[in-house]
């Protein structure tokens, strides 16, 4: 195994190095210098992100356990960008007094989980997949419980860790049956030996249940809202965009590569769950008053849309999912960024706190509006393109009725997104949130997100670039 081959893991390697740098900084900095850990971590991660962008060859190493190609690299880059935005947004939050003693941990855990996601996406066998999945999940529970002073945070932590343990247990049962019926854990061997006996189908269903948990698909979604609400805002945004996108990527890859012959089964399952998820996500989102919880349910509905891209099993769907994930990251991070900025300054997280926000903080309101429009899929912001292409992908395989149900649901979602817009722009408020100046980190992150929201849709090269490397069944 040559050095070049090892370099195929460049993304994970640079992340490990970044992690070690943070660790070292944590160890060697003390006293007043401790705050330096924040810029060091963000800087190190930024460099890692940039390095990961350089083109790299495709390849398979470790006997097929790790494989990389341009598409997976794109997926990882998408995640990196999102995490970078979160890191930038996190800077003011971590500097606050109550977080004083835990700065590096946040970065360490997130980078570690990101490495796990990297392994997961690049996995060539179920073992690496499983380990990546767990690496990406278990430490995040600690992050959810990061606000140790708060009951809700602790509750979020326990709900996340126990639910995810249960889900991975069920997923593992499925994996064990996959192994038992095929004799291998390598993707290509499993795919070759795959039949459609009840046991194998049961295994696939159990496997999918575990993934649905990560994707927050109804009825495996219940943890989502509670955890999102209880966790610190940035952790919530991390959970809602990064880990969800990563899970969607690998879920799609495994379905396409390992279980193409079971397409009838998983199509049916996805069909049913897409409808339930979008509908229920929307219905639950309507009544939410807490912004984080509201975005949680909206993200459940969004997950349902992601399934639309998967269900067709075609290359266009894969492109659409990756593309949508990128847009979704920008949109959701913009929304969460505003929520975080307001929450950091005022501690307010409820929708009616936002009444009249436009008159006092027009820029934040505009960012929020663009983000929500993007989530709702309204042109010319990118969300429109994302959703349109997802629908097209599903339609390509003939799922017109499903698409129809989904688009009708977008109306419900538009309703609740507009509720927030209404609060900010229309509602009158005696005591609106006073004007405040966001710090530069927040601003950079928000500007970057808004640029992303606008550019990703209009600039077709991004779509074309992803599309060039996508594959279907």
């Amino acid at each position, binding site marked *: 195994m040559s050095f070049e081959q090892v370099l195929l893991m460049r993304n994970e390697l640079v992340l490990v190095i970044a992690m070690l740098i943070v660790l070292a900084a944590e160890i060697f900095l003390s006293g007043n210098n401790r705050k330096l850990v924040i810029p060091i971590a963000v800087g190190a991660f930024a460099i890692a992100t940039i390095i990961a962008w350089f083109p790299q060859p495709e390849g398979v190493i470790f006997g097929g356990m790790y494989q990389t190609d341009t598409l997976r690299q794109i997926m990882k880059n998408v995640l990196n960008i999102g995490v970078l935005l979160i890191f930038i947004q996190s800077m003011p939050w971590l500097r606050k007094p109550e977080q004083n003693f835990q700065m590096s941990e946040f970065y360490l855990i997130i980078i570690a989980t990101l490495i796990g996601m990297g392994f997961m996406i690049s996995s060539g066998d179920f073992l690496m997949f499983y380990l990546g999945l767990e690496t990406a999940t278990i*430490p995040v529970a*600690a992050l959810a419980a990061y606000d140790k002073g*708060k*009951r809700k945070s602790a*509750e979020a932590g326990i709900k996340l860790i126990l639910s995810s343990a249960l889900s991975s247990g069920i997923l593992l049962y499925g994996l*064990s049956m996959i192994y038992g019926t095929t*004799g291998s*854990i390598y993707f290509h061997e499993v795919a070759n030996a795959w039949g459609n006996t009840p046991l194998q189908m049961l295994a696939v269903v159990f496997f999918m249940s575990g993934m649905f948990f990560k994707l927050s698909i109804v009825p495996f979604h219940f943890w989502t809202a509670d955890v999102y609400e209880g966790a610190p805002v940035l952790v919530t945004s991390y959970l809602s965009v990064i880990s969800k996108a990563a899970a969607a990527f690998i879920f799609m890859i495994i379905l396409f590569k390992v279980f193409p012959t079971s397409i009838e089964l998983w199509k049916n399952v996805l069909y049913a769950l897409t409808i339930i998820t979008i509908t229920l996500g929307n219905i639950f989102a309507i009544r939410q008053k807490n912004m984080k919880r509201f975005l949680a349910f909206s993200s459940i509905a969004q997950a349902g849309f992601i399934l639309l891209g998967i269900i067709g099993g075609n290359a266009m769907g894969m492109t659409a999912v990756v593309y949508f994930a990128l847009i979704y990251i920008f949109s959701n991070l913009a929304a969460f960024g505003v929520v975080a900025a307001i929450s950091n300054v005022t501690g307010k997280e409820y929708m009616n706190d936002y009444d009249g926000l436009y008159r006092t903080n027009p820029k934040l309101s505009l960012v929020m509006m663009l983000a929500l429009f993007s989530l709702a899929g309204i042109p010319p912001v990118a969300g429109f393109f994302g959703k349109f292409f997802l629908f097209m992908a599903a339609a390509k395989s003939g799922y017109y009725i499903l698409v129809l149900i989904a688009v009708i649901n977008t109306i419900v979602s538009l309703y609740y997104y507009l509720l927030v817009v209404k609060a900010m722009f229309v509602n009158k408020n005696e005591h609106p949130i006073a004007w405040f100046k966001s710090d530069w980190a927040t601003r950079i992150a928000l500007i970057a997100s808004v640029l992303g929201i606008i550019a990703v849709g209009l600039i077709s090269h991004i779509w074309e670039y992803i599309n060039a490397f996508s594959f279907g069944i």
Partner: protein
Amino acid sequence: MIAGIPLTHFLIVSTIMFFIGIYGFMVRKNLITMLMSIELILNSVNINFVVFNKYLYPHQLHGHFFSIFVIAVAAAEAAVAIAIIINVYRRFNSIDVEQASDMKY
């Protein structure tokens, strides 16, 4: 050593154990006992892996190693979970899962 014991008997044991774990997870209100139920689940899965390996695919060690890694993950998971449980205990003065339901609807 395994002569005379059918594969399916192992699987029956592990499957029942799996669902006992799930049952426990659903009914035991104590957070620690819920964690214990998780351990039952993982353990049953391990049995599956190992038995499949031994009976059907003895020429390699996928199931065997998978079990080892699952055990390691289980340990990590338990560590984090217990840390959080203790945290919950501090906040709620209880480790009853039904108490930890500030967030709902």
